[in-house]
Structure formats: C-alpha cells, structure tokens
C-alpha cells in the first residue's frame, strides 16, 4: 500500500517494557552485600579467611562451568549465583579448616545439590547449607574442633573458650548448670561465670570479635549487607524478621537456666549464624516459599527448629539445619498457601 519503509519491526508479546532488575543484578547485589562480612572476617581471622573464601568461590564457579559445558548447556556462571554459593559455604566454615574442605564442599554444592536438579532455580535445598551439612557429617572433627580465636583476643577475657564459639560455651555451661550434682562446685562456678560473661559480651558479638564460622561473627557487617539488600529490594522483611523474632521469643521462653522466660534472647540473636542465616540464607529465593504467607510460615518453622536444635539438639548451632529442614517443606508450603484468587467463590461441588 505504501512505500515508505520495507522495514519490519520487532513483534513480541506484551508487555513491551520490563523492569530493569535481572537475575545477575540480584545475585551480584547479594555478593556485594556479603563483602562487609568478608572484610570483617579477614580483620578478625586473618588472610586465612580470605583464602578459604576464594578457594570455595573458585571451586564453585569452575564446577558449575564444567558441568554446564559437559551437559552442553549455555555457560552462565556470570550470573553470580555460584559465587554466592561459594561465599556462603566459606562463611559457614571454621576459619582453620584444611584447604580441601571448601573445595570438596563447593563441588558437592554445585554438582549434587544444584546441577543434578537442573541448575539455577530448580534446586530444592540451599546448596551452600547442604554442602556445609555434608562436610559436618563427613569430617566432624575438622568442622567442630578447629575454632580460631579472633585476632583481638578472646571474648571478654574468658580465656578458656578460645577454641569454642559463644553458643558452644553457652550450651556446655547450661548443661552443667542443669545437672549440678554431676560436677564439681568449681566447674559449676565456672559455668555460671561464663554465662554471666557471655551476657555482657554484646559489643564483641556485634562487631564480630568472637570465635565462630568465617562469615557469621560480625553482626554489624552482616547488617550493613542486609541494608544493601533491602535498599535494592533483593530481600523482603518477612523471612528475616519473622525468623529472628521467632528465635527471640522462643529463646526467651525456653533458653534460660533458671526456668521458663529467663532466656537471654539478645544473646541468642547476636551469636552464631542467625543473622547470616536469616538475611542471607533463609531468604534464598529459590529455596523459600513463593507467597508472602508461605514465607512467614517458613520463617516461623525455621525459628522453631533453630531454637529446638540450639537448646535440646546435638549441636550448639541450629541455623543451617533448621533452614535445610524447612527447605524440604517449601513445596508443601507452596502447595497449601496458594493465595485466594481475586473474586474466588466457594464452589459447592
């Protein structure tokens, strides 16, 4: 009809504009948000922490690229997801682990937990956490007996715990206090002292000057990262706050040595991997429920399991197992929290 232009224009389905956010942007934001904690780790635990992290990241990225190449899929390690897995795995290891452990862990995380399920978006469990559980089950001695005292010294001058995490100490002391007849008065006294001192070590817990896994000790650094993620809308308030809130309430009720409602909930929030877990791992989009309601259920469940493992379980720390266990329930939660459709009417079948 007309002769102005032979050009055919792009025809695609609507919508024709897209939000600028993308998967790589989200993933790299998380990576950036993890940097403050990495810096804190290097400060407190020395360059060993950096090497462990680097090894872990390299192993994760190389494994992912190799598998994608083998499977003749497009190589997409640039999206930064494997880097997150590497960093998070390293963050969950004690600073003095032998060098091959982050490597083995990363290979397991990527090959078995992620790529065997089809890669990004299809994994059931958080790869870093599953790999940590794998390492803990495989080499428990290396994973639990190699705590390093932070560079600045021990927390609040309790020399005896250079080789333990605060939660570890809390649990041991609580056990002693729970059955005083089995122990010397001196030990009992020491345990009571330890608990008293732990309660006054908030500053150290905040800045991260305590024993623990590489990335979990510095609450402040982690919170800076969390702020970055909030600012960039990478995470939503539901999971982290519900999770931490549940832990706080339950730790207050059950965590005390003098009966119900005497637990030191502030200590429970600040110590161990709760902050790291709540902001960086429980919020993993792929392995958390898709709906808001589901996310709250998920977070409450994680909180309950965390406190249960910390107080009654076999481990001083429960964050990673709690998240893993709740990861397993995500399909169920998603199934039973399908939102009520707009205008849905009860049908009478």
């Amino acid at each position, binding site marked *: 009809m007309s002769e102005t232009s032979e050009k055919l224009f792009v025809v695609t389905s609507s919508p024709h504009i897209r939000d600028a956010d993308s998967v790589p942007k989200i993933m790299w934001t998380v990576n950036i948000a993890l940097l403050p904690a990495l810096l804190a780790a290097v400060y407190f635990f020395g360059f060993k922490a950096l090497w462990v992290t680097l090894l872990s990241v390299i192993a994760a990225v190389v494994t992912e690229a190799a598998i994608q190449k083998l*499977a003749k899929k497009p190589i997409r390690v640039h999206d930064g997801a494997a880097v997150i897995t590497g960093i998070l795995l390293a963050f969950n290891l004690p600073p003095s682990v032998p060098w091959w452990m982050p490597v083995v862990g990363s290979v397991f995380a990527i090959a*078995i*937990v992620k*790529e*065997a*399920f*089809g*890669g990004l*978006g*299809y994994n*059931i*469990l958080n790869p870093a956490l*599953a790999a940590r*559980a*794998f390492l*803990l*089950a495989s080499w428990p001695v290396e994973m639990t007996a190699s705590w390093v005292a932070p560079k600045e010294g021990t927390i609040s001058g309790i020399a005896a715990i250079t080789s333990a995490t605060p939660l570890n100490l809390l649990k041991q002391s609580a056990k002693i206090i729970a059955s005083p007849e089995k122990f010397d008065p001196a030990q009992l006294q020491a345990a009571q002292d330890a608990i008293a001192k732990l309660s006054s070590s908030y500053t150290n817990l905040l800045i991260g000057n305590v024993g623990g896994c590489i990335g979990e000790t510095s609450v402040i650094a982690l919170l800076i990262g969390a702020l970055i993620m909030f600012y960039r809308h990478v995470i939503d308030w539901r999971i982290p706050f519900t999770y931490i809130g549940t832990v706080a309430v339950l730790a207050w009720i059950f965590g005390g040595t003098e009966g119900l409602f005497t637990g030191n909930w502030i200590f429970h929030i600040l110590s161990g991997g709760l902050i790291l877990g709540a902001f960086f791992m429980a919020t993993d989009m792929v392995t958390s429920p898709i709906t808001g309601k589901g996310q709250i259920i998920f977070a409450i469940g994680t909180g309950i*399991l965390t406190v*249960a*493992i910390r107080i*009654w*379980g*076999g*481990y001083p720390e*429960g964050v*990673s*197992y*709690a998240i*893993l*266990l709740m*990861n*397993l*329930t*995500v*399909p*169920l939660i*998603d*199934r039973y929290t399908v939102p009520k459709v707009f205008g849905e009417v009860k049908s009478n079948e």
Partner: protein
Amino acid sequence: MEYGVFQLIILSIFINNFVLSRFLGLCPYMGVSKQMDSALGMGMAVTFVMTIASLVTWLLYTFFLAPTYQNVFYFIFDTPIQNVPDLTFLRTIVFILVIAALVQFIEMYIQKVSPTLYKALGIYLPLITTNCAILGVAVLNIDMFFKDGLPLPNSFINTLVQAFASGIGFTLVLVLMAGIREKLELANVPKPFRGLPIAFIVAGLMSIAFLGFAGFSVE
C-alpha cells in the same frame, strides 16, 4: 534401655526416621511418592497397619512365643516355667503370616464399615503386606522392648507409641518427598537423573538435613 513416651516419639519421627535412617519402607517411599494425595493415603494406611500389627505381634510374642511367666502355657496351664516351649524362633514366620492375614482382614473390615476410609486407604492396603516397614517395626519392637524374652517396663505402651510415631515419621517424609517430586516434575532435571536417580538424591539430601535432629536430648 528404657524410653519415655515423648523421647520415643522424637526418636521415631525424626532421629531414627524409618525411611531416612533405618531404611525401612523404601519401596513405597520411592513408588508412591509421585503424588501428594497418594503419598498421604499410603502414609495413613501404613501408620494404621503398623500400629495394629505391632499390637497383635506384641501380644503373640508375649503370650505365645516367649517362654516367660506371661506365656499362656505358664499362667493358664500351669506348666512349670522350665517346660514352657521356647517358640521365639518362629517369630519371623508367625509375624509375616499374621501381618498378611491382618492386612486382608483390615481391608475387608474397612470396606464394610467405612467406605470413605476404604476409598482413601483401600488401594494401598494390598501393597502393604510386602512393605518391610510393617514387619520391620514388629521385629524392632521385640528387639527394643524385650530383654531375654521378658517385656521391659512399659513395653506395651512403648510398642504402640513407637509403631504409631514411626508411621507418622514415615508419612512425614513420604509427603515431603511427594511435594518435592511434584515440584521436580516441572524442573529441568538432566536426563540421566530423571525418575529414580533424582529421587534417591533427594532422599540423600533429606537424610543429610535430618542429621540435624541427631543427638536431640529429650527427657
């Protein structure tokens, strides 16, 4: 070892989960976990049969097989304790026959009494006879709650609790598995892993996660 009821429940559901830790009931775990509804039905059927089978086998073992003062020959026929026949070697054969008969009977009974329940559990019942979880829990009860043929304190209650809680534990992981497998149906699982292989890997990862329950101290 003596067990408290609560402790036994935690043990049976989480720590020594039938599937993930004791490796019992794997066939239905792999076979009937493709869909949520059937998983739930199977889980309920197994829990039900496990509890009843445990009850019956406990009674049989205590009163007929074990040569103790509770044996019918001793307390009804006044046979001297030394002369009470020791039939414990017939445990396996008796248990399996009883379970097979019991399943048949339960099936007929449910069909008659509650058609709804039959609709929910009916198709799973025939599959249950050869489910090692049933015979497994029956044998396990004898191993755990008897010593030298004598029931330990609370043996009977513990047996029922263990059977029921193990059934719940079985149902729990079966349903979790079904949820995950339904989701995996829509995933991009590499070809060689599709079907059973990925199901086993899920089971392995599930088992790793359940290690988190290890060492729970419950009073």
